[in-house]
């Protein structure tokens, strides 16, 4: 689908919503908006595609229900804001939108929105209700995630070379749909959970030595970063390897890149990379690479989260069950930085090359 057609579709969906609600009002019915439920109860792991997908359960947001009325109003406000952005062919950040829509209702002390944490989920509601992407609603988020590698791209008319950005790397914007890859000279994509890990590998010129594209997510990866990873994987057939801390949160970050997240299950197919592999750190690595002295005692919440992971269908693979159970059994976890214990360049010069060479990955 061309960009132009995509935009027409979104514009049409927004209009359709408005027309439906307006008709209900004229027919004196209770106006409502049908929204698929975004919760674990309505998320299914599709083994075939290796992705999380949204089930068929929906709820209706009614105007004439005291508990729904305000959210109903907010949903329409966000929809109309997005329509205006599309009409004027401009973008706004989700924070920008919040401030645009926040106002005090007449003759009251009540605000349309009090906090951005109220407007953010409404955007996602609208995405699932209309089956469109936030990016298509012309709403952007802050840049999050950095990339470096032997790649040239074209972004809004400018040519950017990811290999010539000095110490910084390229900050990944929230929308990468319209980025054109001009030259991609790499054999793999290595994604690091932590910016500190990225800095280390970047300074060590790891991406040059290993002929890879290096991406730092800075925690849970943004949608832009996930889409970028998917595009590099799909369009340039690059294998993707993910490196995180050896703990339940790190493991989940890997699964989000690979299969999608529970809260954004509706966009899994558009931004996840089912062929991504986990390169480390595993709990077994702690023993294999002699990192025992650098482990951290797992807290109760870590163990609780680990037990939740055990029950997720997409972690029900023998190798993962073994790793997670080992973590619970030993009651330990380790951060990427534990590798520095074996020497500051251990990660870039020994650990990762070894793993890549021996193909020691978890799937």
């Amino acid at each position, binding site marked *: 689908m061309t960009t132009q057609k995509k935009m027409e579709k979104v514009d049409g969906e*927004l*209009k359709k*919503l*408005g*027309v439906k*609600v*307006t008709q209900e*009002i*004229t027919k*004196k019915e*209770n106006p409502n908006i049908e929204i698929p*439920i*975004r*919760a674990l109860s309505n998320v299914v792991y599709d083994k075939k595609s290796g992705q999380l997908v949204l089930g068929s*359960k*929906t*709820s*209706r*947001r*009614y*105007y*004439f*229900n*005291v*508990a*729904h*009325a*305000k959210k*109903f*109003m907010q949903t*329409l*406000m966000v*929809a*109309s804001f997005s*329509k*205006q952005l599309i009409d004027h062919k401009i973008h706004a950040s989700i924070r920008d939108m919040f401030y645009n829509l926040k106002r005090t*209702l*007449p*003759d*009251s002390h*009540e605000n*349309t929105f009090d906090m951005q944490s109220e407007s953010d989920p409404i955007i996602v509601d609208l995405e699932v209700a209309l089956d469109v992407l936030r990016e298509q609603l012309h709403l952007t988020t802050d840049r999050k995630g950095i990339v470096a590698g032997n790649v040239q791209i074209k972004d809004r008319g400018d040519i950017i070379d990811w290999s010539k950005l000095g110490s910084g790397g390229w900050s990944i914007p929230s929308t990468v749909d319209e980025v054109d890859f001009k030259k991609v000279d790499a054999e793999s994509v290595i994604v690091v959970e932590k910016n500190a890990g990225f800095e280390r590998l970047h300074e060590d010129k790891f991406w040059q030595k290993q002929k890879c594209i290096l991406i730092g997510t800075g925690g849970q990866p943004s949608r832009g970063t996930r889409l970028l990873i998917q595009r590099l994987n799909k369009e340039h057939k690059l294998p993707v390897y993910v490196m995180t801390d050896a703990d339940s949160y790190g493991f989940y970050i890997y699964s989000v890149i690979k299969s999608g997240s529970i809260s954004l299950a509706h966009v899994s197919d558009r931004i996840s990379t089912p062929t991504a592999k986990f390169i480390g750190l595993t709990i077994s690595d702690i023993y294999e690479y002699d990192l025992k002295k650098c482990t951290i005692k797992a807290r109760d919440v870590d163990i609780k989260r680990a037990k939740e992971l055990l029950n997720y269908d997409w972690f029900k693979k023998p190798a993962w069950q073994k790793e997670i159970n080992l973590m619970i059994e030993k009651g330990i976890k380790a951060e990427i930085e534990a590798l520095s214990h074996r020497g500051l360049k251990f990660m870039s010069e020994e650990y990762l090359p070894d793993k890549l060479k021996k193909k020691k990955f978890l799937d």
Partner: protein
Amino acid sequence: MGKKTAEDFAREQKEISVSEFFEKNKHLLGFDNPTKSLLMAVKEAVDNSLDACEEAGILPDIVIKIKNVKEDIYVVSVMDNGPGIVKAQIPRILGKLLYGSKFHRLKQSRGQQGIGISSVTLYSQLTTGVPTKVWSKTGNGKKIHYCELHLNTQTNEPDILKQEEVEKGIAGEHGTKIEMEMHGRYRKTVEDYIKHTSVSNPFVKLTYTAPDGTKKIFPRSVNELPRTPKTMRPHPHGMEFGTLKKLLQHTKSRTITAFLTNEFSSIGQHSARAIVKGAKLSDSQKPHELDRVQIEKLIKSMQEAKVQRPPTDCLSPIGNKELEKSLNKEYPEAEFVTSITRDPEVYRGFPFLIEVGIVYGLQEKKKKDDDERQSTIELIRFANKVPLLYQQSACALTDAVKGVDWRRYNMQQSGSNLPAGPMKLVVHICSVWVPFVSESKEAVAGYPEIIKETKLAIQDAGRKLSSFLSGKRKAGEQKRRIQMFDRYSGEVAQALAVLTDHKEKDIQKSLTELVKSRIHIKEEFTDDNTEKNGES
């Protein structure tokens, strides 16, 4: 100085006259301070007028005037259209303490002891020395008796200073006018007393002229006198030893059965025999021969006997409808008025009856605009239709009000205090003998039967209030809901206008109509919550 002998003491000891006693103990009669003293004068005179009119079957028309003659000296004058007082009685009624017709009988009246008006005479003469002036006219065409008198504190007898027949003083066919000059201080309590009197006596017309010359008329809300209360014989329940012994001694009856049927109310032959049997007495015994143990047994048996309630015709309540009318008249701006008249009950063998009135939703001036706290309610107490303006916290009626859990009736209450809210609560006890804690008749004594019955009356009225308040709250919720949708509809219409090609004005109009029609049926709609399901 040598030691005093018993004889020395005897020479110093002498009888104290009742009047001398009260002269020294003015506070016992309610003359504690100048403000209260002025009020007492008005109250005693008005009470007397009302009793007189009611007994004579005359719809009372009472004119009250207070004049400030100098700094802290006031002249109080009260004129009624009652039967008047015969010439010979005037001095004794006004100039002798403990003289009256009401002390020795069991009948509901405002005055009880025969102290009231003569104590005002005493107070007036003690503070100004000016004699009390009385005009009395007993019938059409008859001359008006005028006299000026003092009370001789040593002999407790009236001193008549002047006595003559005059032409002027009373305008109507009959009536009495009293004028007294005294030391006092004027406060709004006097007007409160008159207003409250008008509430508890809906059949009275009161005309009041305050010291500053403003005249207020408190009209009648009913045009019929209440049923005249009858004098009653004692009731067997709650009889006390001393009273029973005195009755046994003075009875003319020859047998105990006869004594019981003659001297008591509600006892017939059948129950009399049952009481005698229960006390293990023989009917051949003469009443005055009973010894202490037998009297106690008789009391016990009388308590346990199943007899009828005391006759209710000796009580004269304000009346349920009358009280409500009267409250509506005095507080026309109230949102809700209700009243309860309970059936008579008995304490110590005296029948009594409780009435409660509630006036809700009066707009009170707030001391500060931002003060959200509600002040406590105003409690208006009455005993035999007389407002009780002092010693609220010492009164059993107040205890009963505090003892009720007002939160049950949708009212605010902290701890066991008076509830808070824009409300006036009227509590009236009427009885052939109201037990006051002191002679100044300001607080009712805490007999458990009275407290219990008062609570029950309040609860009856509370339930009515509660259903009013919950209705009011529902209406309030509905209103808030409509306001909420009106607020949201503006944004909804604006958003829909952007999304569609419709005009915002048109959408807004349809929405407003929709809100109206929806909220109409919204009660069952939001109560069953069906549409909340599935929303995370």
